[in-house]
């Protein structure tokens, strides 16, 4: 049986409207052969987790440039736990200071991509770190 393509939710938590990065990543992941769902802007943690459930995704990519990552990422991860999404991988990118990367890793966000990352790096990371979850 051939492995099904990975399903990835690209999400924009919070109020910031900077969606250039999110849209580029969504497109690059799609071009790399993954199935990509983009949430659009201004999503609450609840909305993101509900989309992840409905779309049955293997990973969530969060894009945030507002500086609210230390509030919104934990809120999303808590809610994922509550809804049983333990095997969904979370990665992210945006204006995220170096000092915050270990804090996010502790929460379980291991792939953080900062300005200057190439789409190839991100695609490669997804290939290496995301597996189709059992459904």
């Amino acid at each position: 049986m051939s492995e099904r393509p990975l399903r990835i939710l690209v999400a924009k938590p919070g109020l910031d409207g900077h969606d250039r990065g999110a849209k580029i990543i969504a497109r690059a992941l799609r071009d790399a052969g993954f199935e990509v769902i983009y949430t659009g802007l201004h999503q609450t943690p609840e909305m993101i987790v509900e989309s992840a459930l409905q779309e049955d995704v293997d990973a969530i990519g969060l894009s945030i440039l507002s500086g609210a990552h230390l509030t919104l990422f934990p809120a999303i991860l808590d809610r994922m736990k509550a809804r049983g999404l333990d095997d969904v991988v979370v990665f992210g990118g945006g204006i995220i200071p170096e000092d915050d990367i270990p804090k996010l890793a502790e929460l379980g966000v291991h792939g953080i991509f900062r300005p200057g990352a190439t789409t190839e790096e991100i695609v490669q990371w997804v290939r290496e770190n995301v597996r189709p979850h059992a459904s």
Partner: protein
Amino acid sequence: MTKREWLQKNYPTKERLGRFSTVSDMEVDPIYMPDDLPPATEIGEPGEYPFTRGPYPTMYRTKLWSMRQFAGFGSPEDTNKRFKYLLSHGQTGLSTAFDMPTLMGYDADHPRALGEVGREGVSVSTLEDMERLFDGIPLDEVTTSMTVNCSASAILAMYFAVAEKQGVPLERVGGTIQNDMLKEFIAQREWISPPEPSVRIVADMIEYTWKHAPRWHAVSISGYHIREAGSTAVQELAFTLADGIGYVEACVKRGLDVDSFAPRLSFFFDVHNDFFEEVAKLRAARRLWARIMRERFGAKKAESLRLRMHAQTAGVSLTAQQPMNNVVRVTVQALAAILGGVQSLHTNSMDETLALPSEEAVMVALRTQQILAEESGVANTIDPLAGSYAVEALTNKIEREAVAYIERIDEMGGIIVAIEQGYPQKEISEAAYRFQRAFDRGDKVMVGANRYQVPEERPIPTLKIDPEMEKKQADRVRAWKKARNGSEARAATLRVREACESGDNVMPPILTAVKKGVTVGEISDVFRQTFGEYRDPAWV
């Protein structure tokens, strides 16, 4: 020698690149020659139609551009301190950055504001916040620019109320509020209601300030965000002027004489790395707008035809890697802005891909402008690049390509229809993706990011936002709501709703409402309830 003859003489030859193009991927010729020049009337004189050489005859020999650093973070007191710091170091105008909740019309105590209060700008929910923000700053002497859009009506009302408290009559209050909703749907993407009612409120504000605050610019028609979202220089110019056409049409439709309000329209452009492309874009902007106003709208006054602009160096061009290099990028971009003839300029700080700027970084950015103004000599000659074969040829090319976009938008039925169909949004996404692929391949170079990287970098100190501040701001809003006269506030809110529904100008009731204690979030709620909420169509 003609260009053709010169090319025949020297080409084909081996060149160091397969293709030479701008950061916007516009191909440039190896050389420009006298036969590239347009007729002399296209270039004209500074301060005269078609204003290619500048909006004013004597330009920087009379008055330098305003040095206006965009600033805002944390509580109103934090930002007030930064304002005073900038003014004390020779800055000549203020420019206010608001936080995301303020920009989206949520008060600091709203659940959606959680984690975002004071992060990307200053938090303002109440009249008291606005008073603290401008405490000790005389609003008749300093002009202020405020970057806020869907909640602009409430913010402007609060600013006017603070001026009134300072005893400054509205006729003497000068400044600019961004208030460009069309580009929000295209690029910056902070909104409350759909395009139609959003544009109606913009027109209400244009009409109100024209009548009551004649030194105020009620809209700053902005290409900056369009460019930052990934557009080309031509798209930036075309979509910005198309938005301008949209506002002029809305005002004319309600019976305003074009020569009444047009002199108060102002513009805001990005200035990216590609030096000549940027100079040419700013010159083309003035010429094309002058033509549009005269030919399309029949404007007669010179003030209606002359495009005046603020510019900001390109945030997207900066790198998180080796951030000191950003000082050099900003210098080149600022020079292009000055040679392009801007009236006001913000230079980005070197640390802006990492965090909001630190005091030290802002100082270098301001000093960059001062060095260009007072040491380099570039401001001593009026429009020194005029007549350059390359600059004039690129100016023509950019104008021509922008006209083609505007014609396409006209064919679709105007900018609102084009936005509803996602046309400018998709064009920009395409351009952004093309650039990213070129960057990934190394065809487009960002020094330090995809070429000349260093393995270990020494981090630079960045600004930290106090996490306690959010709670303090939220508590203040709650206390404010408790302390005000509730029935007066409710009645004033109702008047705002009635104006929204009846089509009366919303500004008078909003002014009354903010004085009665109604908050930015509450006025935005009225818009949500009466006009509905706009949702991101999430086109990729």
